[in-house]
């Protein structure tokens, strides 16, 4: 697949446009778990408190629905409290769950450093941390291996460019959201290191902050200007913290008839979001399966509440999804 032999360091190779032929795919961290629906009635009589990240975004929404589903099956009573990306709200939620004497907690909250206070304010019950560490009180970490997920995306993106384009591209646009805290750094940073492991140091990097949770309007406005500042650029690698900002980037490109120039690497895969998958250069997505988080969270939390052992890490089996393999993971994929 490699036109010229790789020479010197990855960086040198990259600038030579060759790419690192023997780059290894990132190794999944320990603790990747399999999804398992909850046992009917297994949690009868239990109350679970669920501190949400932000119900205004699709990802947590998907998690929410999946957890509700599983709670339903298990016969658990679920109480949700939305932290709206704000740690002090999460703290209030914890206090409230303490007064409500819930039996177990699911905490999906952005500020890992605030976890200590939040743990302290909450009831002393088993805690499932979603996507973000909740030390010292977390019984298990459940969800995305953020860095790994990023690296997977970056690596495959790199592979694609190495094989198709000899690692040549005009710019690397990273649509981020500093508002979601270190998760942003883990995921987007992961993408970069994954990519660099194949195509060497990234050049012409454009980092764009798209506001709290990644907002379409902000992304679109800045993407438009960025594209203007990249006249004639025909290979613009575009990665984003969520799908909204990718849709926005596409809109920005569409309004300049430059949809062809965007090479999309996407975090998470929402089978409904056809705008993305029908784009000319949709490379692929790292699947997070938020719609199945409940199958990790609920059964394990119930076990923990009942005093049984649960693994400390219950990681989502991230998958690299492309148009070719999508049916394996989403049989009813409709785009």
């Amino acid at each position, binding site marked *: 697949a490699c036109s010229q032999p790789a020479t010197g360091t990855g960086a040198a190779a990259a600038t030579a446009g060759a790419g690192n032929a023997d780059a290894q795919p990132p190794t999944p961290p320990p603790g990747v778990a399999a999804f398992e629906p909850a046992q009917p009635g297994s949690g009868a009589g239990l109350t679970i408190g669920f501190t949400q990240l932000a119900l205004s975004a699709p990802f947590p929404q998907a998690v929410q629905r999946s957890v509700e589903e599983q709670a339903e099956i298990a016969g658990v009573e679920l109480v949700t409290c939305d932290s709206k990306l704000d740690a002090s709200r999460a703290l209030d939620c914890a206090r409230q769950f303490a007064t409500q004497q819930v039996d177990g907690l699911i905490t999906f909250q952005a500020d890992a450093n605030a976890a200590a206070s939040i743990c302290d304010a909450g009831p002393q019950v088993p805690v499932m941390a979603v996507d973000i560490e909740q030390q010292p009180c977390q019984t298990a970490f459940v969800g995305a291996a953020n860095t790994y997920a990023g690296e997977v995306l970056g690596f495959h993106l790199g592979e694609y460019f190495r094989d198709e384009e000899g690692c040549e591209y005009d710019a690397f646009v990273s649509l981020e959201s500093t508002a979601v805290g270190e998760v942003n750094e883990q995921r987007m940073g992961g993408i970069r290191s994954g990519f660099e492991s194949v195509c060497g140091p990234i050049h012409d990097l454009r980092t764009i902050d798209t506001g*709290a949770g990644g907002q379409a309007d902000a992304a*679109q406005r800045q993407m438009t200007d960025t594209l203007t500042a990249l006249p004639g650029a025909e290979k613009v690698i575009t990665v984003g913290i969520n799908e909204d900002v990718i849709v926005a980037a596409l809109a920005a490109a569409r309004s300049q008839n430059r949809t062809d120039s965007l090479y999309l690497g996407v975090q998470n895969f929402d089978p409904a979001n056809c705008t993305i998958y029908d784009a000319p250069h949709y490379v692929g997505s790292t699947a997070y399966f938020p719609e199945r988080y409940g199958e990790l969270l609920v059964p394990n939390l119930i076990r923990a509440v009942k005093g049984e052992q649960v693994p400390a890490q219950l990681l989502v089996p991230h998958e690299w999804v492309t148009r070719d393999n999508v049916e394996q993971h989403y049989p009813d994929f409709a785009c």
Partner: protein
Amino acid sequence: MPETSIPTAAAPPAPAPAPARARRQVSIPTSAALLVFLAAEVVFFSVRSPFFLNWANWVNILTALAITGVLAAGATVLLIAGQFDLSVGSGVAFVGLVLVLAAPAVGLPLAVVLAVATGIGIGLLNGFLVTVVGINALITTLGTLAVFRGLTLVIGGGQNIPVQGFDFAIQRPFLDVPVPALVFLVVAVLVAALLRFTVFGRSMYAIGANPVAARLVGIRVSRKLFAAFTISGACIAVAGLLSTSQLGSTSGTTGTGLELAAVTAVILGGVSLSGGVGGMLGTVIGLLIVGVLSNGLTLMNVDSAWQQVATGSLLIIAVAFDRLRQKVFRSA
């Protein structure tokens, strides 16, 4: 009730201090001062970025401020009459949601009609609450702001919902200018004319200047304000269509913060909080000052945090600059 009737008349509650405050607090950058500022920006960025001065980029600037601009037009009318509408941001999201949900069900044309009706409906609701029920505009629109944002999330489930075949907003009918920019220009001209040349516009100024006096010269204040809120509602509708069509989809966070962006441009443009002064031209300049800045900084690849710092400082400097001019002028 009779005793109360005189005092009300006799009391210069808000109105009387207004002109005084208008002079002392709410400074009114004359368009001149702001234009100088805008020019300075343009020169600076032309020097710093090779891409700034070309036509395509100016088209971007216009397009980027189109949605805020349409809302700012409505806000100008309201603020001149001493009223607010903070519900525009969530209104845009709700209009978009109605459109994308209705389109598959009833077809695009009807969906658009519904969406427009929704936007105007929001305006009517605000107008009703303010002029008939008599709740002050800030509380009312803070309320509807929350209500429609909430409804958008409840109904849309925070999802990003696409709409098919509704991409008029990315067309470029002529001079390579996309529809949103053209729509904004049309709206701006209409509102400018409305304020400058019509009796309705005049009465907006009168009401903003002194509602009691306005009433006593025969202006039906409630009706006019109701109309003003409806205009704002119409702007919500237009902005909602533009935003949805541009993105080809809508989501739970669509339009967040637009209300502040709009009001900022209007005030920067010289409309005073106490009403009765200012105009659409000022608002357009206000929009450009902010729009050019963010465009230029993005072209220079300045990271968005620094952009915020720059924008904030500039907002202050622009007005300070004008205050200075006024002082010098007066003591001259």
